[in-house]
């Protein structure tokens, strides 16, 4: 039994922290709310660090690292609210590599940005592959690959869609049969992306419409791999959220030691202290579940849906709690743009509603356990 980070993982994490410290990404997150164009493009940083090809095998030009390594990088991005566009790219790159796509090398190098247009796999209650609608609580059917080999459908709130050079789309087949993963060129006339920004300017999102788009189908990618891509995105989003939780905790603890009221540091009051310990408790739980997800992906793939969903729900809830505590521990200051707290709150509020949302992830935890009971 050994769950400690390896020397290589410590190096990867420290290098990521260092690379992301060269730009003040938190300040950038604030400015971008009013001026989205001012957001720095961190993609060159990602490429230089080798993150674009992190999950691509060495034979295809990538680094061949594991899912937990990718999570470590996502955590670092989350710590400083850096928008690095890996959430869409990494799961897509993994499918491209698996399917032997000719674009894999460019994607691994980062000269082409990939974007996963994921679909939520069927569960023990809903038996279809579904995607986010533009509004409302009803999910819609995943895009469909026609018998003519063309792709139709609309998927909303897709992370990193607006910068993508290539889309990897999980689609159902008109003639029946299982789901497939298809590759659509970003320049194809049958695809259009409407960029959208809500509440958190660091999160690049898009509504993607396919209207008779030409595709190439990825070989050797079946229902299990399509599902795994969805859960991989869940795990990566969980890791990113956890990174933000860590910053919220550290910032709050530091302030609680130096802010005095009634002659005492506020961290000595139990209401404050216990709430900070609650952040720590939620952080520890979420980190343990990320470890579970990282381990399951490699060693117990049957448990990956459970582990990734649990991690997503736990980390999202932790960030929700931590970002609110960050505000309240800072009192009036925490509610203003003078402080970073609102930026973490914005991150939390949007993140928890993406890719099915926390409710969906929590339901999936129950569904997986009930199905196995």
């Amino acid at each position, binding site marked *: *039994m*050994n*769950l*400690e980070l390896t020397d290589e993982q410590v190096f990867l994490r420290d290098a990521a922290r260092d690379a992301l410290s060269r730009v003040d990404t938190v300040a950038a997150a604030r400015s971008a709310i009013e001026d989205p164009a001012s957001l720095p493009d961190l993609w060159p940083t990602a490429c230089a660090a080798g993150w674009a090809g992190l999950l691509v095998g060495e034979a295809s030009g990538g680094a061949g690292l*594991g899912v*937990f390594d990718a999570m470590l990088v996502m955590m670092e991005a989350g710590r400083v609210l850096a928008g690095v566009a890996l959430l869409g790219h990494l799961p897509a790159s993994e499918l491209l590599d698996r399917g032997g796509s000719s674009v894999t090398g460019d994607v691994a190098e980062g000269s082409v940005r990939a974007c996963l247009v994921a679909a939520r796999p069927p569960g*023990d*209650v809903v038996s279809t592959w579904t995607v986010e609608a533009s509004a409302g609580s009803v999910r819609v059917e995943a895009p469909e690959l026609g018998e003519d080999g063309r792709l139709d459908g609309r998927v909303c709130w897709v992370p990193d869609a607006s910068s993508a050079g290539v889309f990897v789309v999980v689609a159902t087949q008109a003639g029946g049969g299982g789901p497939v993963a298809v590759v659509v060129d970003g320049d194809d006339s049958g695809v259009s992306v409407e960029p959208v920004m809500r509440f958190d300017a660091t999160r690049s999102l898009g509504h993607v419409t396919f209207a008779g788009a030409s595709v190439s189908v990825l070989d050797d990618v079946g229902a299990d791999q399509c599902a795994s891509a969805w859960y991989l995105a869940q795990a990566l989003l969980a890791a990113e959220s956890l990174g933000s939780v860590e910053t919220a905790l550290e910032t709050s*603890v530091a302030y*609680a*030691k130096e802010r005095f009221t009634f002659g*005492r*540091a506020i*961290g*000595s*009051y*139990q209401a404050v*202290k*216990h709430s*900070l*310990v*609650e952040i*720590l*408790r939620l952080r*520890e*739980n*979420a980190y*343990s*579940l990320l*470890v*579970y997800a*990282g*381990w399951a992906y*490699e*060693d117990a793939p049957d448990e990956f849906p*459970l*582990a990734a969903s*649990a991690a997503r*729900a*736990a980390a999202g809830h932790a960030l929700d709690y931590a970002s609110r505590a960050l505000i309240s521990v800072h009192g009036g200051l925490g509610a203003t743009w003078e402080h970073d707290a609102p930026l973490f709150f914005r991150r939390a509020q949007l993140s928890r509603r993406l890719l099915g949302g926390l*409710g969906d*992830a*929590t*339901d*999936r*935890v*129950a*569904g997986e*356990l*009930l199905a*196995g*009971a």
Partner: protein
Amino acid sequence: MDLNDSPEQAQYRAKVRSWLQEHRSEAPVFSGQDEQESIAARREWQGTLAEAGLAGVTWPVELGGQGLGAVEQVIVNQEIARAGVPGILDVIGVGMLGPTLIAHGTDEQKHRYLGPMLHADEVWCQLFSEPAAGSDLAAVQARAVLQEDGGWRLSGQKVWTTNAHFASFGLLLARTDPSVPKHKGLTMFIVPMDGEGVTVRPLRKLSGEPDFNEVFFDDVALDADAVCGPVGGGWGTAMTTLMFERLTIGLGSEAMGYRAERFAQAIAADAHARRDPEVRRRLGEVSLELLAVKFSGYRTLSALQQGQIPGPESGLAKITTVRAAIEAGDLIADVLGPEALEADSEWSHMISYLPGLKSAGGTEEILRNTIGERVLGLPPEPRLDKGIAFSELRAAERAAVAAAKSGSRS
């Protein structure tokens, strides 16, 4: 990221598993007989486990243990749970009080007491808490007075003492000097439970089970060699016990049986509930907390294997386990209805056990204070009891309570 046993651990696990396979028929069944019989059977089973080297795994070899690490202890716990047989009866003795004797006792004490404790020939109890000293353990009032012959006379009351009704000995924290501040005037004693002047009165727990007690000491005579650790150093000795208590609770969480799969099974049996969104949300929330605790446990083990000792943060797993299990009990009772509260149901037992578990081994509030201060480095609350002689402190407390009472009456 490796959850597998090392080759040596795998070998050890295989050895433990095959022994349990071979001897499981000798194990007592969990319920069905009266308390006396059940205790006798579990004593005998602990003796059998001890003979096989499955009790006192981490105790030194020269004191009858196996001289192995915490990881091996966890392997034994896991295999015992897997075999579906009871573990040792005297978890408090072997897990907490024995290690305290090993750390602080004299050679004579170790040789006299540890062997019979390990084999459950003599069961032990922890005589720490008192009516006015639980969280604030250093406020104990049980008074031991030194006699001219070097012996002691003990008077006072302990409470919530698990297993006292069949224990042979207790480790007791007493005040030996009220004229100094409260943490300083304490001493730890080994007390024979059949001594003259010792009275054990059973207390029923919420569940109805009479497995803990209040214990009265009326001028009980103790020999000089009943002292464990330094006279006046009882607080340090008690801290050792509480450290082992944390370890025992931390490493034993899997054995408590609060597993996500178990609760999912209970819900899955109800075709309507298993599709109800609200039931699923609640089950999902409970389950992810319990899955997190399971992997936190693996992280603790991994750290132990790298030679680290778990700190106060391991209390977080206790908080999470108890909360999640309480939620799970609520959910299952909501789904099953009043039938879940039927006296013999496993859920009724769990539901009535958990509120007490929230206090046992450190209340949630105390754990949060400790973790906030020791792990996050937050400042402690101001204290009104520092540096004041215990006798003065008690007088001030009595005056405050009297003032509050007359105030509320007027």
